[in-house]
């Protein structure tokens, strides 16, 4: 059975694309690795929660899930795409989920896998109790659970204030907010934030609540060290320069049991790169993004890239990009006329302008600054999976292993279970700093299956060792 359109990711862009595509008559399937659609931004409540507290945001997520459920699009939850490749002008996906492993054939493919967290290491960051800002968001949105009793929230970007505010809202205690950016950086973005006054007011509300509750908010400060025996106990903070480099002595030492740390989002581009879509480096959109037209068509025929996976423009933009991508696919498959496509896209494109302006203003706060490398000690672990320290990486880069594949082969950094998701950004920043190359010149290591960890047992299914046709040995 072949689909017209398969969509990887059922978040704001993927689910919206599925609703649009199926309404235009396309046989559509959405595959998402989470338990429910909605992505991270509209992460659904866990099934243990009988009665949640509703907000306008969670209501919007519920609406999206309801509309997707009511549409003719199929939805596979808790299912991972671990491999994909082109078959003629179409695609085949290898998936694994609650129903075992199988393949999906589709004429067109939409990549809506969203973004990954960028977290720059700091001494002590592998201690239990240190989690990402996105992680804190997921924990609170899904489980309505606090990350700790005394929480420090640190890093850059809008998630910083969302997480701090959410902790307060859920009855928790924020011991301090530590923002690498000076307050002026936020104020400078005010004009662009005006393009979405609703989102601006929400952000202002977050800051106000923090101030009213007397939470120390330190702009132009960074984490120096996380201290603890077997989990987080103390967090040392100091000033940073405009380049995010630590400057001067430690100024604050917070007694805390939790650190939520994050430095923005970057596009999860591996599936698109694996299919051969041409990418370019745009630091204002989070880094490597596929080259696309205004509807999301990549350089690969019948492949569209939508949402944050195609550039960090935010959730509001993602919904619109999802719909535009679906319309483009429908038009390319002659399921709608050019006139119908045009009339549908006109208003969406107009809305996308203002949504994108706000989203990109937020992303610009998270463009990595080289000075942060000075916060990473030589023995700080950079690859958590394989235990590779900064000094080991630098030694390899300086000895000539300075291209991504060579560095990966020599150190194993990026070969561990997470597939390089959490070390890629800092490895790139470090390599560029040591070699003087730009990220565009450096590139990335070759994308490799599996896109997610899969066990041999799960792929083998019913196959057993006894099924192996081993011939009888010759008689002695």
């Amino acid at each position, binding site marked *: 059975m072949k689909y017209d359109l398969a969509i990887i990711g059922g978040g704001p862009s993927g689910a919206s694309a599925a609703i649009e595509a199926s309404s235009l008559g396309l046989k559509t399937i959405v595959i998402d*690795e*989470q338990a429910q659609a909605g992505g*991270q931004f509209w992460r659904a409540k*866990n*099934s*243990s*929660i*009988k*009665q*949640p*507290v509703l907000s306008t945001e969670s209501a919007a997520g519920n609406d999206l899930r309801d509309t997707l459920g009511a549409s003719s699009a199929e939805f596979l939850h*808790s299912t991972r795409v671990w491999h994909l490749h082109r078959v003629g002008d179409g695609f085949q996906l290898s998936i694994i989920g609650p129903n075992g492993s199988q393949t999906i054939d589709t004429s067109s493919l939409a990549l809506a896998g969203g973004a*990954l*967290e960028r977290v720059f290491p700091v001494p002590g960051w*592998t*201690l*239990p*109790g*240190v*989690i*990402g800002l*996105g*992680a*804190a968001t*997921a*924990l609170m949105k*899904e*489980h*309505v*659970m*606090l*990350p*700790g*009793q005394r929480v420090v929230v640190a890093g850059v970007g809008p998630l910083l204030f969302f997480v701090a505010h959410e902790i307060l809202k*859920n*009855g928790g205690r924020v011991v301090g907010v530590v923002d690498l950016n000076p307050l002026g950086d936020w104020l400078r973005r005010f004009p662009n934030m005006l393009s979405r006054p609703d989102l601006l007011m929400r952000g202002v509300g977050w800051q106000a609540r923090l101030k009213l509750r007397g939470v120390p908010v330190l702009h132009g400060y960074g984490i120096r060290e996380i201290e603890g025996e*077997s*989990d987080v106990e103390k967090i040392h903070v100091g000033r940073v320069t405009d380049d995010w480099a630590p400057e001067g002595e430690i100024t604050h030492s917070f007694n805390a049991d939790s650190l939520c740390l994050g430095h923005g989002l970057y596009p999860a581009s591996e599936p698109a790169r694996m299919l051969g879509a041409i990418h370019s480096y745009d630091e204002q959109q989070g880094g490597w993004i596929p080259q696309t037209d205004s509807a999301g068509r990549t350089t690969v025929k019948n492949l569209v890239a939508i949402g944050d996976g195609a550039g960090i423009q935010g959730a509001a933009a993602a919904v619109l990009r999802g719909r535009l991508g679906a319309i483009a696919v429908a038009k390319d498959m002659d399921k709608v006329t050019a006139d119908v496509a045009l009339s549908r896209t006109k208003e969406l494109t107009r809305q996308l302008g203002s949504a994108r302006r706000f989203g990109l203003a937020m992303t610009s706060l998270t463009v990595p600054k080289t000075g942060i490398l000075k916060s990473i000690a030589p023995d700080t*672990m950079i690859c*958590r*999976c*394989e*235990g590779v320290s900064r000094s080991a990486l630098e030694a390899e880069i300086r000895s000539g292993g300075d291209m991504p594949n060579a560095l990966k082969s020599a150190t194993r950094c990026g070969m*561990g*279970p*997470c597939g390089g*998701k*959490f070390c890629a950004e800092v490895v790139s920043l470090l390599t560029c700093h040591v070699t003087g190359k730009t990220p565009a010149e450096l590139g990335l290591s070759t994308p490799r299956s599996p896109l997610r*960890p899969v*066990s041999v*047992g799960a792929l083998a299914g019913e196959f057993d060792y006894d099924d192996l046709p081993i011939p009888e040995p010759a008689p002695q």
Partner: protein
Amino acid sequence: MKPGLRRTKGVTRHAPVKFIFDQMELEAPAGESVAAALLANGIRAIRHGPEDGQPRGAFCFIGLCQECLVEIDGNQIESCRVSVRDGLKIGRVRYQKKPSP
């Protein structure tokens, strides 16, 4: 008594069930992810890093970082992707020490 990490104001959850982690009997509402349930039970060191032997816990909470791995029925799985159910038995992932050269 220290208040728990689960927000209770305006939120109701399903009844707690018993599950076992590393031979410890714990409780959590059915459906909660094991990683969240362990966190709420004050357990954050879920395993140890294979190279440095240092305690590790859940880091990303969405199934990607592989730091929250546990052992269930002989398989390794991310505890943030497993739901607590009555009688669930979970072990710690343990790495064999590398043979010395």
